[in-house]
């Protein structure tokens, strides 16, 4: 069995309007010297080169047992639609016998791997990773994500104005990979403190594909969360429609066109999305929210055409 742990942090890019392609490269290129990978279809997407950070820390198992973990975390950042920024921290946990730390050259030859020195309980480690509070994350993955995100958000290329006010979300995931597994099992949970967790049990898979999948889940969960909070703030039914529409506007300008589940994914990831859509029904909730926004716009437009011109000004 192989255990991969990760965390994804998602935020609105601090830039008014979408980022043009040339600037995206400057912003994401901060992380390392290598090139930013960019694709335009089916949606604008850019991903930074991988970056690594060394760790030497305690890894907790659910039973409360601790082992020492030494190695490196892989980090990267990506930008979708020129607007939604994400950073990821990922590590494969390799149990090794013997309780001593090797020279760094050993770990540098295995980038993205953390060796757990001593008796390791992989399912227990996965459970502890997912059960922890938002404020305490395994191997400092959370702090690593914050660092990657902050560096980009502070880039001089950005104008620092945030189009939609939203809390950064954290999605923490654990993937248990076993040759003998057929298909995938996925458990997605929304926790009280704004934390999301994803537990995957699957057959042979590439780590990069799992990271892509988890970032895609985090992206759509963030979009839904942000849209719902904009709707709540707009006070549909309490405020005048024209007022509500003013507040809904950022969602229309910056969020609605970004919903494209699994657009860039294939294989295993697709079947995970299919599984998720059948139960919590993320897309169903999204569609219903989008309908509320559109209905409100339509109603406000209808009302304004029968009113004096000053209330129509919102719709130019």
């Amino acid at each position, binding site marked *: 069995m192989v255990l991969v742990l990760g965390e994804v942090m998602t*935020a*609105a890019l*601090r830039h008014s309007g979408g980022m043009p392609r040339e600037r995206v490269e400057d912003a994401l290129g901060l992380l390392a010297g290598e090139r930013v990978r960019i694709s335009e279809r089916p949606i604008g997407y850019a991903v930074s080169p991988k970056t690594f950070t060394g*760790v030497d*820390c*305690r890894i907790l198992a659910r039973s409360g047992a601790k082992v020492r973990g030494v190695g490196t975390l892989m980090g990267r950042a990506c930008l979708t639609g020129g607007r939604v920024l994400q950073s990821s921290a990922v590590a494969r946990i390799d149990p090794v016998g013997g309780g001593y730390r090797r020279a760094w050259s050993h770990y540098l030859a295995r980038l993205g791997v953390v060796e757990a020195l001593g008796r390791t309980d992989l399912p227990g480690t996965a459970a502890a990773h997912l059960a922890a509070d*938002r*404020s*305490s*994350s*395994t*191997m*400092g*993955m*959370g*702090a690593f*994500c*914050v*660092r990657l995100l*902050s*560096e980009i*958000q*502070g880039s*001089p290329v*950005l*104008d*620092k*104005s*945030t189009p939609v*006010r*939203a*809390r*950064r979300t*954290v999605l923490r995931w654990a993937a248990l990979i076993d040759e003998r597994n057929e298909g995938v099992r996925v458990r997605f949970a929304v926790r009280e403190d704004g934390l999301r967790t994803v537990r995957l049990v699957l057959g042979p898979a590439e780590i990069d594909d799992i990271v892509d999948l988890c970032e895609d889940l985090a992206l759509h969960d963030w979009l839904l969360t942000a849209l719902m909070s904009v709707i709540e*703030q707009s*006070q549909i039914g*309490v*405020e005048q429609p024209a007022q509500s529409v003013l507040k809904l506007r950022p969602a229309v300008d910056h969020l609605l066109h970004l919903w494209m589940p699994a657009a860039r994914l294939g294989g295993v990831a697709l079947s995970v999305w299919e599984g998720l859509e059948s139960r919590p029904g993320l897309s169903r909730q999204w569609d219903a929210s989008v309908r509320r926004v559109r209905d409100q716009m339509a109603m406000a437009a209808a009302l304004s055409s029968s009113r004096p011109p000053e209330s129509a000004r919102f719709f130019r």
Partner: protein
Amino acid sequence: MLVFAASDKGGTGRSVTSCNVVYRSALTGSDVCYLDFDFGSPTAGSIFQITDAQRGVRQGGLHSYLLEPDIQTTGEPQRIDVWTQSSRASLRQRPPGSGKLMLFPGDQDGGEFGPDKEALRRCVQLLQALDEEFDMCLIDLSAGRSYATQLVLEATADPALRGVAARWLVFHRWTRQHIPAAAGLVYGKDGILDAGVRAGHDKDRLQSAIKFVRTAVVDPDSIELSGLRPAQVAWLRDCDEDLRRIAALHQVGRRAMLGTVPLDPVLQWREQLISDNDVVARDIANNATVDAFDELARKIQDDEGWAEP
């Protein structure tokens, strides 16, 4: 927007006024948060009436976030949703259309600290993340020339926060001692301007982002004083005139002032939020006080009053 609340002396009403201003802003629909950077005596929890955080929290508050960078933490300090966590019933009924009202408490066993590179980095990251989420973040600093003040001056000079609006409120009582003291905190040696320039700020720009707030002011013409004898009122008026002169002399006059909060009986008695209920139904607080908080909340966000000369 970042708003820093400072004062030279303790007990000026900096925390109470700030908490009320943040509360009034949330009522008007802004998403706001209050950061207790008064590490020596974090009292915001008691003003918002958060039972478990009267004097700060036991762990994970702002002080430990900045100073104990444990590898296991995510880099987020503890937050308390005032609308759901306050023990005050009238606060727990969040009015429709109101914005977020979040408290970032200090730690019980905090205390002042000295320059620290890692704390600076974390401070920048925190302000950046909160500015993404909130329309206004109010940071309550310790009284006097504290390290907290120096820290945020350095943080706001960091390129990562360039382009983020940062405004300063300097609170002082309307007395002969407090007026020069407040002026000293801004214009004096090692004051905010001095320290700001050393941190990399442009002096004129920084100065135009600093305004004074007068607290617990007795207005000689208010109806509360209608019982006074004419000679007493005349004397109070003379005092007020005298204070105005002193203020102008110290560059703390009208042009540098953002607002005035009148002396209020409820606040005199204890530190708390004043709800509309306290004014209207219970008739214990003064309407003028709430008006003053509303006005401050509005002026803080109004770009016009903050333009560079």
